[in-house]
């Protein structure tokens, strides 16, 4: 434990000798989920984007199986619009922990003519097909995702073990009830289970845990100077993916990212938070949810996430 731990609630709660801090309770629950999957499934995989939630997932997986290696590979669904800092982080992490990495490439699908670029240049909705085909071809039967129930309304009813049919589709009415901590991972051949170890975590929990554990993140999560332009009320990074368009003015601003996704639809926020502690203070005072602030794709319609989940999105 470091000094940070005391500041951010990582220490043992003082009111009972046998109580746990909320971070310890969430950590223990997530580790239990990882071990259940490792114990019951043949071929799990962990979705790894280089975003903070997937980084925290990997950290938990490393702790769950230490001193042994993580008994499953990573899968990156690569939109082709990556922040270079995030790709570098991914490769560094894979090498450091001696992990195996699978990549499902949206660009390949576009090059082969299977997927078409959208007029708005956004590639997040295009991830579903490469992801589901990779799950089928590699016969993954459990897929860890970093989804959190606090992110969005459609996720609030997601199970920890979420059964998907052979088309990866999610049917809210077919989901199994989950009682106590008894997870049911039974599935038919061709079906798989999406597993969400961070279901009960919030954005603030994730940041507090990052601080407590001293987890390294890609630099773009912290305030830095960047050339950005304004679209749909969000600061987007200029780049080959299609921005800026005519009339959109590029300027240099001090920003950071609250989420990391496809460059074309992940917005930066004005921020001078250049340390984990400052980020936590900023989030605690924030008046916008992270998806509300930074994700154009969720603004497409009120039920945008519900629709994408049904189709097999994360």
């Amino acid at each position, binding site marked *: 434990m470091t000094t940070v731990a005391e500041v951010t609630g990582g220490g043992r709660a003082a009111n009972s000798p046998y109580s746990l801090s909320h971070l310890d309770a969430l950590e223990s629950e997530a580790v239990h989920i990882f*071990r259940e999957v490792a*114990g019951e499934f043949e071929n799990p995989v962990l979705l790894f984007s280089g975003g903070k939630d997937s980084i925290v997932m990997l950290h938990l997986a490393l702790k769950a199986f230490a001193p042994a290696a993580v008994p499953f590979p990573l899968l990156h669904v690569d939109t082709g619009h990556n922040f270079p800092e995030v790709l570098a982080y991914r490769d560094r992490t894979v090498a450091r922990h001696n992990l195996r990495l699978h990549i499902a490439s949206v660009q390949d699908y576009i090059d082969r003519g299977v997927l078409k670029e959208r007029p708005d240049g956004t590639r997040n909705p295009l991830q579903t097909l490469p992801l589901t085909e990779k799950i089928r071809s590699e016969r993954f039967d459990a897929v860890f995702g970093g989804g959190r129930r606090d992110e969005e309304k459609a996720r609030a009813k997601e199970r920890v073990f979420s059964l998907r049919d052979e088309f990866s589709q999610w049917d809210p009415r077919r989901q199994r009830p989950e009682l106590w901590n008894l997870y049911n991972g039974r599935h038919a051949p061709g079906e798989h289970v999406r597993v969400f170890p961070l279901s009960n975590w919030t954005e603030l929990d994730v940041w507090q845990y990052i601080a407590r554990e001293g987890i390294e993140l890609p630099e773009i999560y912290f305030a830095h100077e960047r050339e950005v332009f304004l679209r749909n009320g969000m600061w987007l990074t200029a780049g080959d993916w299609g921005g800026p368009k005519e009339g959109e003015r590029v300027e240099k601003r001090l920003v950071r990212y609250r989420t990391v996704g496809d460059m074309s639809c992940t917005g930066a926020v004005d921020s001078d938070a250049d340390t984990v502690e400052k980020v936590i203070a900023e989030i605690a005072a924030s008046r916008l949810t992270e998806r509300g602030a930074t994700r154009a794709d969720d603004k497409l319609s*009120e039920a945008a996430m519900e629709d994408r989940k049904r189709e097999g999105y994360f």
Partner: protein
Amino acid sequence: MSTTTTEELPATTLLRFATAGSVDDGKSTLVGRLLHDSKSVLADQLEAVRRASAGRGQDSPDLALLTDGLRAEREQGITIDVAYRYFATPRRRFILADTPGHVQYTRNMVTGASTAELTVILVDARNGVVEQTRRHAAIAALLRVPHVVLAVNKMDLVGHRESVFAAIAEEFTAYATELGIPEVTAIPISALHGDNVVEPSATMDWYGGPTVLEHLETVPVSHDLAHCHARLPVQYVIRPQTAEHPDYRGYAGQIAAGTFRVGDEVTVLPSGRTTRISGIDLLGRPVDVAWTPQSVTVLLEDDLDVSRGDLIVPSKDAPATTQDVEATVCHLADQPLTVGHRVLLKHGTRTVKAIVKDIPSRLTLDDLSLHPHPGRLVANDIGRVKIRTAEPLPADSYADSRRTGSFILIDPSDGATLTAGMVGESFASPEPVKDTADDDGWDF
């Protein structure tokens, strides 16, 4: 839903709680009020609610919309499932299992209550304790939820009268005591106007107790673990087999109940082999003692054959193993549970084949009447069952241990979760039931 709070950090402990009540009781408004008044609703969420309320021609934001989830529900104006909400105050982090109160959704209330340390049961002050209230109380009692809050809502519609509240609180508390519920806290509220939800009421000065949120912040979440049976279901065997750790063999699991110490004499079930704990690894840190619900890796002195599904217990406090399980169950699936049904039973980390030998009775939650030998249980039925397992199970009584006294039944053909089970007697007190075959009024 998001959770950030503008108050000072940190939140220390975690409280999981559930709500039960129908739309008419104002449950969604209560939950919306808790989120809104604890400043857990952020500007973009509130703006979405304002837009939606205006679109429906409502003047003020309808806080109930904060908790509406899926489009299918919004279109039909119903809540179809358990939704989880997250919020925090400087004192505590909360996980709320928000369950709908319709008759046909008993299974959702059971699901929400299974992990809850506290249940908020809502009643409409104008109607008092009704059948549905009794059903909610019975579920809290069956699931052994340690703390129950009775929120008497819509006090503004009964003139904020103390006598109305006192009568409802007295009737409910008597019923809850009969069910064996150890603790009831009754609070008069108006969710619509915010009285006694987060802020104390300005109009009910006769009430001197805590608001709903104050109570949630201060109710004790951990009990005296020293007197609990210690149980560690083995999830996974960790064997690095590396140059650095050639002989490491650790048994990983989440402590389901009680405490374990290095040096404890332990027995591994079902084999019955005995050894001592030589080390406890708490996610990378060696410790002398660990307790529920910590995830740990335990090292044993002797090289026993231990695998996933085994249960590590103190030798002096081992549960009996049995192949004949008697339990109270809630049936969850649309296909019925019948006598002779072949199922899989998951208990802890162990899944075994089993057969339903008998269904001695079905319980009507409204009046706790028993209906003998129903032959089958359909979705949302509560009943007693006798199950024969293919292998011995080290099951505790649910009254002693919620984690190691519970199980689920799984359909081996399609993998569906059929039934949730609790080993042993249904209620804490001697069963206050009247035995009757009269099916009148049974409406599940």
